[in-house]
């Protein structure tokens, strides 16, 4: 396996304090069995799944509880054994926000009894293989939760498969620990993906501040003896792990604003997804758990935990020794792109990679903002090369033409501008809100333009109708006035019509 250093420097970005020491000090904790499971029917990007269990039914670990009906979907499995308590709406944290969505709530019986047999074998036919992956419930575990089967069926031939081990956001260390402990499995999963995609090249990208992970991966890569594998060590700059940023870093190509990386031949898959795929293919085990980093100064034992999907956050916190000190904020995700949770009753989903119980001094408290002093540091830090200060002005003025020009929708909401702003302007939040308003405005504009066209056609038709009527009248009048025979004929016709009408009327009587 070839190790190399890409010769490009990341665009923008920040070097942030990592806060990963505490959670990487001990191996991943395994064998945690929660008392309750809250399994959301929609834990992926795409249409929700359909439940196939009933209230009161006993389910076993690994059993499908909700089936994927659509292509862009992924099944949900019971991650431990127990009884279905209810199928009801619950608040569930999804990719960007909390949603109310239907969930299967299971009371675990603590026996953790596995479904007999090891599930279906790995089929030979590629289409069936993809279906197998969908039924195995596998989605992108980096946080995007895009159904993996769908991503492995690109419309453009794949040039490079990028296995993303660039875990650049502060606090998160679940991928790092997984790479250290299960490098061979990850490499195997990557090779399965590469075969499915028929990709000529496979690059595993890892940040330079993870020497143990790099070492383990190199060893596993050498052991696999595969020549298409490469390992790229990436500078430790946030947010190089973003798909678009990583593609630019590794290939020098920019993903056009209007496209996904897969549409230009680059498929990015998270290392956790590769691991899950390995488990599914080699052991017949669907996606039942994921590694979650539990971090922050407000947690007694910060560590990485192999957590069954659907575990209530509170139970996971308990497993890590509970809260210590005055926990100010509970953050799901990293400290840059994660969001604060109002309580710890919501479940861990397939996309939850990190949980931070933060005390006051760890998180942003100062929300008083000053005037922008145009220092331009935000533009320097922006990985999308936007001008946040100009965008801010456009957003606050509701100037939609300028918002388009300055690329509001190219903002990836990484938060770099926000953190570096000396005037403490909440840029990311302004942009997030502006995106909603902008989308609404654009819909409105399209509607208005269409309406204008319809009105124009309506008016034209009305005018044309009037003219046509007038032309016909003119024609008749002209005929009648010039031709005596026609005049007689017209009079007769009128008399006949009148008679007929009178006749009809008498019939009716």
């Amino acid at each position, binding site marked *: 396996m070839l190790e190399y250093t890409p010769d490009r420097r990341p*665009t923008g970005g*920040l070097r*942030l304090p990592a806060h990963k020491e505490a959670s990487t000090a001990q191996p991943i904790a395994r064998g945690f069995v929660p008392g309750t499971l809250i399994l959301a029917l929609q834990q992926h990007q795409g249409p929700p799944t359909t439940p196939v269990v009933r209230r009161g039914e006993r389910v076993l670990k690994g059993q499908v509880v909700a089936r994927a009906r659509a292509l862009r979907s992924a099944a949900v499995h019971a991650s431990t054994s127990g009884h279905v308590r209810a199928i009801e709406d619950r608040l569930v944290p999804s990719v960007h926000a909390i949603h109310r969505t239907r969930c299967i709530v299971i009371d675990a019986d603590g026996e953790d009894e596995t479904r007999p047999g090891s599930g279906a074998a790995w089929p030979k036919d590629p289409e069936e293989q993809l279906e197998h992956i969908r039924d195995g419930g596998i989605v992108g575990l980096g946080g995007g939760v895009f159904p993996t089967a769908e991503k492995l069926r690109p419309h453009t031939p794949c040039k490079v498969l990028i296995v993303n081990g660039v875990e650049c956001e*502060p606090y998160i260390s679940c991928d790092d620990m997984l790479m250290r402990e299960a490098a061979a499995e990850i490499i195997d999963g990557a090779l399965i993906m590469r075969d499915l995609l028929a990709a000529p090249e496979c690059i595993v990208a890892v940040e330079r501040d993870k020497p143990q992970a790099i070492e383990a991966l190199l060893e596993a890569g050498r052991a696999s003896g595969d020549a298409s594998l490469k390992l790229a060590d990436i500078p430790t700059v946030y947010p190089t792990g973003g798909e*678009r940023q990583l593609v630019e870093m590794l290939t020098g190509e*920019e993903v*056009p*604003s209007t*496209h996904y990386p897969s549409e230009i031949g680059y498929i990015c898959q998270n290392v956790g997804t590769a691991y899950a795929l390995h488990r599914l293919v080699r052991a017949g085990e669907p996606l039942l758990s994921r590694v979650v980093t539990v971090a922050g100064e407000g947690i007694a034992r910060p560590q990485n935990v192999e957590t069954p999907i659907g575990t209530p956050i*509170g139970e996971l916190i308990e497993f890590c020794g509970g*809260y210590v000190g005055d*926990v*100010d*904020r*509970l*953050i799901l995700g990293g*400290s*840059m*792109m*994660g*969001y*604060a*949770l*109002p*309580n*710890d009753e919501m479940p861990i989903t397939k996309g939850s990679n990190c949980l*931070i119980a*933060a005390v006051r001094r*760890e*998180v*942003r*408290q*100062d929300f008083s903002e*000053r*005037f*922008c*002093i*145009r*220092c*331009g540091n935000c*533009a*320097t830090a922006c*990985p*999308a*090369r*936007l*001008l946040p*200060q100009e965008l801010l002005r456009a957003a606050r003025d509701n100037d939609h033409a300028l918002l388009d020009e*300055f690329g509001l929708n*190219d903002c990836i909401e990484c*938060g770099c501008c*926000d*953190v*570096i*702003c*000396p005037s*403490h302007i909440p840029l*990311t*939040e302004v942009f*997030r809100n502006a995106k909603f308003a902008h989308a609404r405005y654009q819909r409105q504009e399209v509607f208005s333009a269409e309406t204008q066209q319809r009105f124009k056609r309506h008016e034209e038709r009305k005018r044309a109708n009037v003219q046509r009527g007038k032309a016909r009248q003119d024609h008749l009048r002209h005929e009648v006035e010039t031709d005596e025979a026609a005049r007689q004929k017209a009079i007769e016709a009128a008399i006949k019509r009148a008679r007929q009408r009178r006749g009809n009327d008498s019939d009716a009587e």
Partner: protein
Amino acid sequence: MQFDVAPGPHTAPIASVPLTMRRVLYALAPAAFAHVWFFGSGFAINFVVATATALAAEAAVLRLRRRPTRVPLNDCSAIVTAALLSFAIPPLAPWWIPAFGAASAIVVAKHLYGGLGRNLFNPAMVGYVVLLISFPAELTQWIPPRMGDLDYQHLGFLAHLSYSLTGALPADITIDALTRATPLDLVKEGLRSAQTYSEIRAGSLFGGIAGRGWEWINSFIALGGLYLLYTGTIRWQIPIMLLVGLLFPATLLWLVDADRFATPGFHLFSGATLLGAFFIATDPVSAAESDRGRLIFGAGIGFLTYCIRTWGGYPDGMAFSVLLMNSAVPLIDRYTRPRIYGRN
């Protein structure tokens, strides 16, 4: 358990305006002490007067504009303006000179344009130019630096203070006996009256590279500039390109005719070159916003300064160059906008 929520990102900000401004003040401190050592306590008096006026003017205008006063006042930006202005005016000046300059800087250049962050022009330089045009006599009264062998009259703190407040000097000294032309003046006048550069350089006010005393002050300013670069308070584009824009034509012309043009070293260590490069042109509010734009902005200031020094009517041209390039900023920004990721 329930928790308070707040919008992300949750990472605490790593910079703040007051911190930036304080760093600028720290960076200016060594040069300020050098200034006091070489030219007497005049600088300190000017700084105090300018700061007091600047803060008072800021408070008054904010009150008039019905804006909160506490936050803008404690961001130290008015003090930075006052400090930069104090470096620009002669140490021996009546009190109303720094006061008038600081008031113009804050009221006209800063608040008439909408306050910190909205001003098109560098406030300190507007203040200085207003003074330079309105009171040319007072603005050229420089005293010679404190050097053992120079014919110079040391004035104590009280003498400076009394001149500042009342215009009265100690009985046996006249103002003409005190003041000397600055090295930049001497070079300009000398070259104009057909002296060669080396003849001018032979004067007692000149040291190894440029004016004596000035070399030291400017070295300390450069040191402060390096501190700002090191702490990331300023970025390299403007200072480096400003120096390139100034030193490139200076070197070229000096190589062509060493008699009629001053050495690049002289330009580097004279007048406001280093102050301008590290402290004035780098004012983020009035500078270009993109990195590429800043290269052009800096180079423009350097080049214009050289032109004004060599062919213009004023001995130094930093203030005018900065203001001219400030007015070009919207244009520069327009043409140096970075290409957005993924767009053609």
